[in-house]
């Protein structure tokens, strides 16, 4: 996988100046898969088993599925943290950001955490104070800028982790159960923030177990089971009438083995 190998943000979009009935550039019927036939083996088990994920290049896609389905792992593969044993990863790693379920914050102030991420993203020094202020505002963290990041509440810490992930201005933002341990109010703040990010040029992939959250946020849902993509559908249709027995059982709260 190379960093130059990029997903087209809007496949099928016509080049400027073309008429609608003369498609000189061939349009793709489907977006190029971000993961194609990905297999990941650990100790003889196939944790990812021929997983193919097609992301549309915009909006919010939710990954759902029981524990052990390989949702977090597929985010890590997309972020370039885990190398698969087989299969293709069309990576935009340099423009991909990952927010972990449990935020990992540096032992520094809130401001210094953001500045560190901007330095990691090679943002020039003179631009950094402005960008820090922008990110603090986005996360509603202005009043906490000089607090030690490790002393923040769970909700504040996750807001910081999310806006820090935006320091690279990612094209693809991966959220791994970002609200799993948050109260409703903090959850709403994270959801608003993620929705706002998705309205701009960033595509969002969200791992969630909460059908309510998927309904509120996601445009499409990819249902995973045993390391495979089982079903892909628009969010409302999936939550209303899942097609596969595995997805029906999962949404009904029945045990999936």
């Amino acid at each position, binding site marked *: 996988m190379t960093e130059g190998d990029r997903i087209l943000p809007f496949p099928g979009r016509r080049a400027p100046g073309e008429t609608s009935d003369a498609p000189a550039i061939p349009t793709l019927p489907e977006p190029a898969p971000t993961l194609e036939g990905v297999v990941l083996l650990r100790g003889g088990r196939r944790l990812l088993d021929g997983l193919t994920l097609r992301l549309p290049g915009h909006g919010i896609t939710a990954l759902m599925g029981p524990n052990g389905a390989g949702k977090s792992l597929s985010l*890590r593969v997309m*972020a*370039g*943290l885990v190398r698969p044993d087989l299969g293709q990863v069309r990576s935009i*790693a*340099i423009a*991909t*950001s*990952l927010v*972990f379920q449990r935020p*990992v914050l*540096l*032992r*520094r102030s809130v401001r210094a955490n953001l500045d*560190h*991420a901007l*330095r*990691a*993203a090679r943002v020039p020094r003179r631009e950094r104070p402005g960008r820090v202020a922008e990110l603090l505002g986005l996360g509603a963290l202005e009043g906490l800028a000089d607090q*030690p990041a*490790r*002393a923040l509440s769970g909700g504040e810490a996750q807001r910081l982790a999310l806006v820090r992930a935006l320091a*690279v201005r990612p094209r693809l933002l991966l959220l791994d159960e970002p609200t799993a341990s948050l109260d409703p109010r903090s959850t709403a703040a994270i959801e608003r923030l993620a929705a706002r990010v998705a309205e701009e040029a960033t595509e969002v992939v969200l791992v969630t177990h909460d059908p309510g959250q998927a309904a509120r946020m996601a445009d499409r849902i990819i249902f995973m089971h045993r390391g495979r993509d089982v079903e892909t559908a628009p969010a409302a249709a999936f939550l209303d009438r899942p097609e596969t027995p595995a997805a029906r059982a999962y949404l009904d709260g029945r045990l999936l083995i």
Partner: protein
Amino acid sequence: MDGFSGAVSAAFGLLAALDPELTGIVGLSLAVSLGATVTACALGMPLGALLAVARFPGRGLLAAMISALMGLPPVVAGLAVYLMLSASGPLGPLGLLYTPTAMVIAQTLLVLPIVAALTRETVAALHDEYDELLRSMNAGRMFALGTLLVDARFALTTAALAGFGRALAEVGAVMIVGGNIAHATRVMTTAIALETSKGELALALALGAVLVALSALIHGAVALLRNRAEGPAHA
């Protein structure tokens, strides 16, 4: 000599008057031990960080050896450096034996394992925690290592202070390679040993008081830093 109480009051006299012999000895002690600590940190912190982060054959063995050397008896360190620097040793032609430089080398040998082992421990724990984050940021290896060292700052300062404390307090190594020569290589610990054996208790007591005060200061600072490092903002 008029007994113990006389020695105590004479010691206070030396301290109060900032006796030049006393201050000379304290100054040389601080200079030698500080030099050794700085050298040991310059070598030991990168070494410890490397052992924490890099994967290479023999890494475990090297880490175990460094941990074992934390308890190296100072006289043995002194003996080893003596053998290297003595007239017939490999570094004999440099003429360093019985100079402050030789004392710095010997104390560096004592402090380095402490600094390296504590750095390795701290940086390894941070590396476990930060590794995925830093890789997901596409941070370069040197940038990542810098992040780990900055975030380990309290623990690394503690390691340096612990090393400085050990260097200041040891007698054996500086005695062997320094020779306890007045106004040249005489430091607090060797002076105390000599003055006590001569029965000159005043200077010994005064130096002992300074040494205890410095040691208390260092350990107070270590305790404060540990509090800070384990506090809610940092842990």
